[in-house]
């Protein structure tokens, strides 16, 4: 591993360029952003399109099912462990690359319009570029440590971007919370890495996989490793119980929410598990844990989403819910389905966030749905695209969300009926609150002030263009993974097959469910979605129901609207005690016990000095007596006491 690998591959240059371009963009923006003015945003967008082009090149040129390791240098080493700076290009990373650079560049484009009037324009783009750089490292690394660089790096960028408007301390709190919650997960990740280092002496994906395969199925070591890795994933992908940062993270500018907190960063946990699929397949108990956590998160977030009135918060909870769904898929060993949902979700959730951004832009910063309504008339493009996104997430065929969601539900049905029921219920709720959002925002009449009403306008082309592109993708993206009842070639599955081949060997292959059963499942899912949409329509369009003000809520709905008081519980259970402990340590232990001991020693010495001082009588005769007697004693000791 020490010797440098001579790069002959034609993929070398594009691979290097993919992360380097955003990094270059970051430096240009960070150093010269102020001077460049709005040009800086265009540069940032341009480098990303460049990176997207490179990713496309890789996609087209990587032989089917092949993978390529591109080593740049040895980063560091100790003992016999070498950590190279190397990239792994295989179908999985290319999928992520395409999503990140593709959606990333669209969101950059969108931000050009969205952030146009902001003072920190160039700063914003430098952060975005930096984020993309780290995200690319995350998905391209050929070992866990490179992944970890990206992992922490995106956390940093998320911190910087959530707290982008740093004058507002609430935003800063949210940013800090996101970073710290992520770090809790990171600790799990690090411990997982240590265990891998300890048992496999390496962090390279393939070496770890080989080592794990030797240990065999259900080995406790692997279970621990995977559990710790999953803790990392929980932090990054906002799963129970570490999800609370994600709704707060909506404090950042909307493109950030779209890019980081919907399409890319939060799916890093799913990517990581998919990447370590061999490990996870060898640890069935961990998979069960993931399944349970994923399902619970999905359901929990969906319930909370029902009562949110902030347009972005609704989307945030829906993201958490969808992430839970993806984890559930992973937990059932259906890695492709999980990844498939990552891709489709990236499209429609980015679309929804950008659409929400467009709404907020039109409303001049207002985010409360209770003050909106009837916007469909004024901002038609936004409305249309937003509707497409909503339909997609609700799982109505033939939109993208339907296919990926259906695949997961089918797997769940085959795996465990209870899980299937819960997940179906959660997607039903999803359809309901998403349409609640649409109806409250776009239909009926405007509820805000007149001042705002005059201000409402359609967003500029830089913002609508990405919306349209993403909407198109949301419609067609599902076709890369048609269910077996429609087509025999599942393009997406085939593309990723090589990545998950080993897992498929380990895991007992589930028997295919019959076509008729699958038709029934599809029918049920669609019916449920339609029913909840109808219910939403009935409640919010026919009855023109508007959610009540927060203080009027009572009973269970108050609990739900306050997110089950999870933040408050965390505050009293973790934050307050730690603060109390901090004071306790300082005042009691440090000042009282330790310092008192130190001072006590000093005090005792002082007092002894005070007492012994009295021996200094000033009488020379006494001194001489003392001297002679001491001499006698010393000599006597020397002679008679044998040492």
């Amino acid at each position, binding site marked *: 591993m020490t010797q440098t690998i001579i790069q002959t591959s034609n993929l070398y240059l594009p691979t290097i360029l993919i992360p380097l371009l955003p990094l270059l963009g970051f430096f240009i923006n960070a150093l010269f952003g102020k001077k460049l003015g709005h040009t800086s945003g265009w540069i940032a967008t341009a480098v990303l399109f460049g990176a997207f082009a490179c990713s496309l090149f890789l996609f087209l040129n990587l032989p089917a099912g092949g993978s390529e390791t591109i080593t740049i240098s040895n980063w560091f080493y100790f003992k016999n462990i070498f950590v190279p700076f190397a990239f792994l290009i295989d179908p999985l990373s290319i999928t992520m690359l395409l999503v990140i650079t593709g959606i990333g560049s669209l969101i950059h484009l969108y931000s050009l319009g969205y952030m146009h009037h902001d003072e920190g324009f160039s700063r914003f783009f430098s952060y975005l570029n930096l984020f993309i750089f780290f995200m690319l490292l995350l998905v391209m690394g050929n070992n866990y440590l490179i992944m970890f660089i990206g992992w922490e790096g995106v956390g940093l960028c998320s911190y910087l971007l959530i707290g982008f408007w740093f004058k507002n301390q609430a935003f800063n709190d949210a940013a800090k919370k996101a970073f710290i919650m992520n770090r809790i997960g990171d600790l799990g990740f690090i*411990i997982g890495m240590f265990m891998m280092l300890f048992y496999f002496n390496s962090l390279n994906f393939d070496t770890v996989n080989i080592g794990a395969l030797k240990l065999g199925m259900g080995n406790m070591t692997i279970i621990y490793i995977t559990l710790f890795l999953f803790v990392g994933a929980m932090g990054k992908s906002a799963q129970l119980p570490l999800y609370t940062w994600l709704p707060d993270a909506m404090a950042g500018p909307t493109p950030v929410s779209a890019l980081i907190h919907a399409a890319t960063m939060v799916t890093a946990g799913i990517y990581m598990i998919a990447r370590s699929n061999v490990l996870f397949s060898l640890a069935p108990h961990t998979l069960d844990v993931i399944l349970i956590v994923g399902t619970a998160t999905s359901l929990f977030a969906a319930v909370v989403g029902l009562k949110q009135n902030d347009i972005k918060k609704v989307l945030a909870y829906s993201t958490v819910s969808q992430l839970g769904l993806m984890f559930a898929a992973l937990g059932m060993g259906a890695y492709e389905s999980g990844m498939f949902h990552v891709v489709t979700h990236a499209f429609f959730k980015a679309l929804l966030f950008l659409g929400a951004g467009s709404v907020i832009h039109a409303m001049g910063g207002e985010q409360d749905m209770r003050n909106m309504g009837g916007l469909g008339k004024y901002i038609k493009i936004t409305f249309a695209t937003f509707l497409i996104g909503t339909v997609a997430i609700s799982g109505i065929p033939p939109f993208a969300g339907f296919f990926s969601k259906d695949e997961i539900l089918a797997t769940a049905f085959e795996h465990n009926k209870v899980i299937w029921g819960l997940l179906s219920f959660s997607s039903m709720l999803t359809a309901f609150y998403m349409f609640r959002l649409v109806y409250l925002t776009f239909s009926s009449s405007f509820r805000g002030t007149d001042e705002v009403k005059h201000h409402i306008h359609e967003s500029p082309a830089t913002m609508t263009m990405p919306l349209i592109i993403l909407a198109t993708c949301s419609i067609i993206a599902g076709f890369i993974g048609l269910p077996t009842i429609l087509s025999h070639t599942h393009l997406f599955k085939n593309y990723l097959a090589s990545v998950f081949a080993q897992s498929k060997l380990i895991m007992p292959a589930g028997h295919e469910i019959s076509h008729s059963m699958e038709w029934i499942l599809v029918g049920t899912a669609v019916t449920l979605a339609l029913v909840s949409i109808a219910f939403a329509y009935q409640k919010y369009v026919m009855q023109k129901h508007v959610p009540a003000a927060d203080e009027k809520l009572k009973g269970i709905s108050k609990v739900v609207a306050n997110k089950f008081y999870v933040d408050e519980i965390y505050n009293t259970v973790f934050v307050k005690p730690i603060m109390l402990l901090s004071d306790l340590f300082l005042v009691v232990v440090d000042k009282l016990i330790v310092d008192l001991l130190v001072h006590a020693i000093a005090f005792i010495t002082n007092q002894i000095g005070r007492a012994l001082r009295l021996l200094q009588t000033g009488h020379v005769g006494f001194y001489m007596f003392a001297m002679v007697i001491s001499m006698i004693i010393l000599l006597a000791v020397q002679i008679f006491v044998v040492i």
Partner: protein
Amino acid sequence: MLTLILLLIPLIASILVLFLKGESVKWFSFFATIIQLIFTFYVYSVFQNKEAAKSLLAINIEWISSPKINFNIALDGMSLLMVFLSNLLMPLIVLAGFNRTQERSHIFYSLVLLMHFALIGVFVSFDGFLYYIFWELALIPIYFISLNWGGVNRSTVTLKFFIYTLAGSLLMLFGFLFLYWNTNLHSLSWFDLTVNHICSCKQGFLFWMFFIAYAIKIPLIPFHTWQPDTYSTAPTQGTMLLSGIMLKMGLYSLLRWLLPIIPNGVAEYTPIAIALCVIGVVYASVIAIMQTDIKKLFAYSSIAHVGLIAAGIFALNMQGIQGGLVQMLAHGINVVGVFYCADIIINRTGNSNINSLGGIRLLAPRFATYFIIIVLGSVALPLTNSFIGEFMLLFGIFEYNSWAAIMAGLTIILGAVYMLRMYQKVMLGDLNENVTVFEDLKWNEELVLATIAILIFVFGIFPKPILELVEPIATEIFKISFVK
């Protein structure tokens, strides 16, 4: 010979600077330290050439024949790393004082340079007694620096610091004498002591002699109470010296004079030592969370960081030792950075309470950028210098005991908590009424912070030269000190 020159440059400079006055004092000190730094690079290049290094770097002259004390100075990878750290930080520390006015600045800088001399001496001496002399010598200048140029309540705080550390040194002196009389070579040369170990029955007792001395200097819980007060009272350059270089003396000494010399004692008491260190990490981090004084906050964070280093060293494995060395360099750079930032803030606002600061980023964006880079460096974000060290240290502890690693790993979380909280309260938010004017960086401040920021990334991205530099000596120490 080269080592001797390395040692003498600061000494000569410290004498010469006494004859200057006014601005020339600072410039002279700055150039002296820069020359020293350049010379260090030359020494490094010589060091790379193993053959030439042997004859050029070591000096061994008999100084006192009975008891046998030699003037034995040399350089190995570990010493060179520490010398490099000192010489790297010294120009920054001197430069940091350029826009401050001190009374009797020629004495101040003379003391700073004398301190530099003593620190280099500690790192290059290979004779126990010589090492002890330099160790104590280092205490004298910093005592006067804090006593004469310190903040409120300085005489009490400085006295506490002085006596505390002196008490530790006394134990160490006793340990050395004990070693001298109880090994059959009757020599305190490092090369003799590492080969010719004292009977393992006496090592347990000796371990505590040395351990307490170093635990006070580092400082480890519960010997740390001198530190927060001293750091917040000493003048900033003094604090930078103390935290950047002087506490590395303790960590360096663990590796140089404790592990290889009394391996059985270390092996016997490692569990206690690691427990102390790990508890210290969590304890200090938790305290730092609620600190409101910015300098004390950094002081506690420093206790947490060095506790981690010490824990990694006591884990007694390669990655722990190597990681400890790498982290010493990283921590030295970062801690100087944070204290300088704190100084800039306190100097401009006259306020060190983080609750009455805020919004500085609005007024001084460049300062804010450097500050966040340094903060991120000290929370060990990947690609910054402390990540690799912290990773290796934690892995070292993990190999020793996984629960200890999880405990120590809490520093990852808690570090982020207190650092970001501090950054948020000081730099972000709207302007506090106490902060109405805040001038952005002056040229010398920018130079210092930019250098530190660059170093943070350079050592984070290219740690290999450092790892290669310390690998041979780390292996050697590991081999000597690993008892099974």
